[in-house]
C-alpha cells in the first residue's frame, strides 16, 4: 500500500549545546562535554535511534560571535569548537546508518585537502559522508589565514553593489571549490586499482585522471591521492538565504538548506532554485531542497513557548534566527512539516533549541508521530547516505568521457 504521503527526509543540525544561546545553562546541558568525543557520539546515537537521514555539524574558522560579520568578546555564550570534519570522522565508526555532514569553510582552505578528507570520511563511514560548504566573508576570519584581506561590512550594507559583487565572487569561488571536490572524487575510476600480479601493476593508470582545473582563485592538477570513495560522490550541501547562494545550491550541490517562513515562502524559494537549476543545465538531476527550522518541542501545549521565554530571559534578549522558530508540540510540528512539504520541500533540517531535550523530542515524539501518519521510515532502508536520500551512485565523469570518446571514435 502506498504511503499516504511521499516520505519525508529529516536531518538534525548539531551545534554546541543547541541553537538557543542560553541552552548551555539548562540542567540537562553538558557544556563541559563539548570538547570530548563522547558528547558528539551520544548525540549522533540519539539521532540514529530516531532513524534520521543525517546530522550536520556546524563549524567556523573563527571563534563564535553573536555578530554575523565581526567578533563580539561576549563571555556568556558557548565559545570554542572542534573541527567538524574530524568530529564527523571520529563518530563514523560508532554509528552504522546515519549520514554525517560536517561543515567546511571553503573560502580559505584547500579544495585538495577537503576533497580527500570528505572522501576519507566516506571510507570510514562506509558511504555515509557528506559536506556542507560554507562561505566566509568575515574579515576577521581572513586575518586568521593572513593570505587575503576582506573589507568589513554589515547586514545593512548587503544590498550595496560592491558588497553584492564581493558576495558574488566568494560564491563563485565556492562553486569552483565544489567543482574541484567533485572532479577529484571522480579522478580515480572505480576500478582503477587492479593489483595485476602478472604485469606488476597495482593500478591501471589509464583510469586515473588529471582534473586540470583552472579557476580565478586556484588551479588544481590532480588526481586525488585518495581513491574514489564508496558513494562515488559524497553528498554536497549548502545553506542559502538569497539569490546568489540559491544559485550555488542549484549549480553545485545535491541538497540545499533554505529558511522559508511559511509555505508560500517555501514555494517561492523552490521555484527560484528550480529555475536556476534549469539555467545551469541540471534540470534532470535531483537537487533536494530542505527547509530549516529552529525547534522547541514539548508534550504539553504551551510548554515549549514557555521554555523559550525562560531561555530568552536567561539570555537577556529574545532569540533571533535566520530560520523560522517553532515552539509547540510534536503533533503541531508534524502538521507544519507536511504542509510545507506540499510546497516542494523534500525534507527538513531541524535545529534543536536545546540539547539533548529538543533532539529527544524529535527522535522520540516527532518521528513516531510522522510514522503514524505514514510519512517517515520505520527502519533504515539503505546503507549509504545517497541511498537514504534516494540519490543514485553516479559513475565517474571520466569513465563516461572515456567511453564517450571511444564510441565517438568507432562511429567515425
Amino acid at each position, binding site marked *: 500500500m502506498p504511503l499516504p504521503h511521499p516520505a519525508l527526509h529529516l536531518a538534525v543540525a548539531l551545534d554546541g549545546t543547541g541553537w538557543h544561546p542560553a541552552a*548551555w545553562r539548562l540542567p540537562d546541558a553538558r*557544556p563541559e562535554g563539548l570538547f*570530548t*568525543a563522547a558528547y558528539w557520539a551520544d548525540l549522533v546515537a540519539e539521532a540514529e535511534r530516531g532513524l534520521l537521514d543525517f546530522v550536520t555539524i556546524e563549524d*567556523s*574558522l573563527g*571563534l563564535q560571535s553573536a555578530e554575523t560579520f565581526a*567578533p563580539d568578546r*561576549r*563571555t*556568556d555564550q*558557548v*565559545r*570554542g*569548537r*572542534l*573541527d567538524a*570534519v*574530524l*568530529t564527523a*570522522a*571520529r563518530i*563514523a*565508526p*560508532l554509528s552504522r546508518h546515519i549520514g554525517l555532514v560536517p561543515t567546511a569553510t571553503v573560502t*580559505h*582552505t*584547500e579544495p*585538495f*585537502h577537503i576533497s*580527500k578528507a570528505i*572522501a*576519507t570520511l566516506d*571510507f*570510514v563511514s562506509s558511504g555515509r559522508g557528506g559536506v556542507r560548504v560554507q562561505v566566509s566573508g568575515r574579515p*576577521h576570519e581572513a*586575518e*586568521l*589565514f*593572513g*593570505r587575503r584581506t576582506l573589507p568589513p561590512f554589515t547586514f545593512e550594507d548587503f544590498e550595496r553593489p560592491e558588497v553584492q559583487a564581493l558576495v558574488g565572487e566568494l560564491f563563485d569561488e565556492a562553486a569552483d571549490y565544489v567543482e574541484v571536490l567533485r572532479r577529484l572524487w571522480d579522478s*580515480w575510476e572505480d576500478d582503477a*586499482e587492479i*593489483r595485476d600480479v602478472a604485469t*606488476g*601493476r*597495482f*593500478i591501471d*593508470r589509464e583510469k*586515473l585522471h588529471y582534473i586540470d582545473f583552472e579557476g580565478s*582563485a*586556484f*588551479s588544481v*592538477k*590532480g*588526481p586525488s*591521492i*585518495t*581513491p574514489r570513495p564508496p558513494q562515488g560522490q559524497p553528498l554536497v550541501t549548502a545553506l542559502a538565504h538569497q539569490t546568489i547562494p540559491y544559485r550555488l545550491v542549484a549549480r553545485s550541490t545535491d541538497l540545499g538548506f533554505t529558511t522559508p517562513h511559511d509555505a508560500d515562502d517555501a514555494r517561492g524559494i523552490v521555484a527560484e532554485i528550480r529555475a536556476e537549476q534549469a539555467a545551469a543545465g541540471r534540470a534532470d538531476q535531483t537537487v533536494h531542497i530542505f527547509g530549516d527550522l529552529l525547534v522547541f518541542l514539548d508534550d504539553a501545549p504551551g510548554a515549549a513557548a514557555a521554555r523559550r521565554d525562560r531561555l530568552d530571559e*536567561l539570555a537577556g534578549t529574545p532569540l533571533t534566527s535566520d530560520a523560522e522558530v517553532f515552539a509547540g508540540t510534536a503533533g503541531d510540528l508534524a502538521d507544519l512539516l507536511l504542509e510545507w512539504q506540499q510546497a516542494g520541500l523534500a525534507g527538513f533540517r531541524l535545529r534543536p533549541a536545546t540539547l539533548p531535550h529538543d533532539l529527544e523530542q524529535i527522535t522520540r515524539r516527532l518521528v513516531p508521530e510522522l510514522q503514524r501518519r505514514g510519512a517517515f521510515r520505520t527502519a533504515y532502508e539503505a546503507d549509504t547516505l545517497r541511498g537514504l536520500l534516494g540519490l543514485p551512485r553516479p559513475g565517474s565523469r571520466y569513465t563516461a568521457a572515456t567511453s564517450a570518446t571511444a564510441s565517438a571514435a568507432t562511429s567515425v
Partner: protein
Amino acid sequence: MSKPLKQIHLAAHFPGVNNTTVWSDPAAGSQIDFSSFVHLARTAERAKFDFLFLAEGLRLREQGGQIYDLDVVGRPDTFAVLAALAAVTDRLGLAGTINSTFNEPYEVARQFASLDHLSAGRAAWNVVTSWDEFTGQNFRRGGFLAQEDRYERAKQFLTAAQVLFDSWRGDEIVADKESGTFLADPDVGRFQHRVSQFDIAGQFNVPRSPQGRPVIFQAGDSEEGREFAASSADAIFSRHSTLEAGRAFYTDVKDRLDRYGRGRDELLILPAATFVLGDTDADAQEKAALIRRQQVSGQTAIKFLEQLWNRDLSDHDPDGPLPEVDPLVGENTIAKGRASVRMHRDPLDVARQWRELAATKNLSSREVIIEVTGRQSFIGTPSKVAETINEFVQTDASDGFILAPHLTPGGIDEFADTVVPLLQERGVFRSEYEGTTLRDHLGLAAPRNRDENRDENRNRATERAAS
C-alpha cells in the same frame, strides 16, 4: 651497579606508498578500507605500542611523465583517518605526517588541537616540508619554495602553530550555569604573529587540548633537520640502519639539545625498521630474501636505476649488469614526487659505488637494487630480533623503532604475538599502558605553556584592537 634498563618505544607504520609494501602477496589486504587501519591499530594497541604512524604524500608519484603504477597507490586523508581510529582504540598514540608548505598554520593547529581532544590526548604531528612545484600544482599556494626557505618556513610554521596551541591556557572555560559565565576571559585565544612567512592575527577557537599540543616529530637527517629537531621536536623519525651509524646519529643529535636548554630525554630517536621473523634464523633469512625479491621486481629495479641514472632505461635487462652509460647529471627530470631522488646528490659517485658492489659480489642490476635499497631489517627468530632491538636501544643507537611491516593489514601480528612478550619478559617494554596520553607513553613532560609569548602577543593584539 649497572645503569637501569632503558624502556623501548615501539610504533607501527601503516604500510606506505612505496616498494616496502608488498601488495602482490595473497595475504595483502586493502590499502584504503578502514578495516585495514583498524586491524593494524588494534594489533598495535594489543601489543601496547606507543603509537601508529601514518605517512603522507600530496601528489601521486610519476616517473617518465606517467603515474607510477608498480607500487601501492592511494591513501586516505591523515587527519580524518586518525580521528576515526581514535574511536576504535583507547590508548594508542595517533601520529600523522602533515606538510608545512601546502597548509596554513591556523588550520593545521585547529585540526591537531581537535584531534588531540577527540583522542583524549593521543595526537602527534610529523612536520615535513615539501619544496616542489610538482606537488604545488594541487594547491592554492602552488609554486616553488626555494631550498633555503624550506626549513625557515617549516620552523616558522611550527612556531606559529605553537603560538596558537598556547593561546588558551586551559582554565578559560568555566561554564557556570548559575551565574551565566561561560568564559573567564573575552580575549581567549588572542594571538598576533607577524614573521616573514606569516602575518596572522585573531582568536584561536579550539580550547587547550589534553596534551597542550601534539607530540612533534621531525623526519630526515640533514644538518638543518637535526638542528630543527634539537630545537623544536619531541622525537625524530630517522633512518640509520647500523648500530654504528645509529649511535653516531644519536650522539650527534642528543649533543645538540643542551644548546636549547633541553635534557637528553626530551628528544627521542626512533628509526624506521623492517623485520622478518622465522622459526630459525635460516628460515627467517630465506623469507627475507623472498620478500626482498617481491619488493624489487625486475621492473621496479629498472625504475630505481632510472631514478639514479636520470635516463629512460626501459629497455635495460634487470637480470643483466648495470647500465654501461653514466648517469645524466643535472636536474632530475625522470622521477617526480618521491623523496629518494634527493638522496642521489652525486649520481656519478653512487653509480661508481654500485658498480664496485656489482663487481665484488657478481650481482645483476636487480640484485644491486635489492642490496642497496634494503633498509634496516631485523631478521631472525623472535628471540634474536628481541635481543637485537634491545641492544640497539640499550647501547644508545636509538630509543626504539617505528616498525614498517611489508604486509597490510596483518604485518605486525606475528611481531605482537612473539617478539613483544620477549621484550616484556626482559623488563624493557611495558606490559600495560601506565598513562593515557601519548606524552605519557613517551615519557615526555607536559609542554610548558609559552605564557610569556602569549601575554606579550595578547597585549600587542589588544592594543591593536583598541587603536
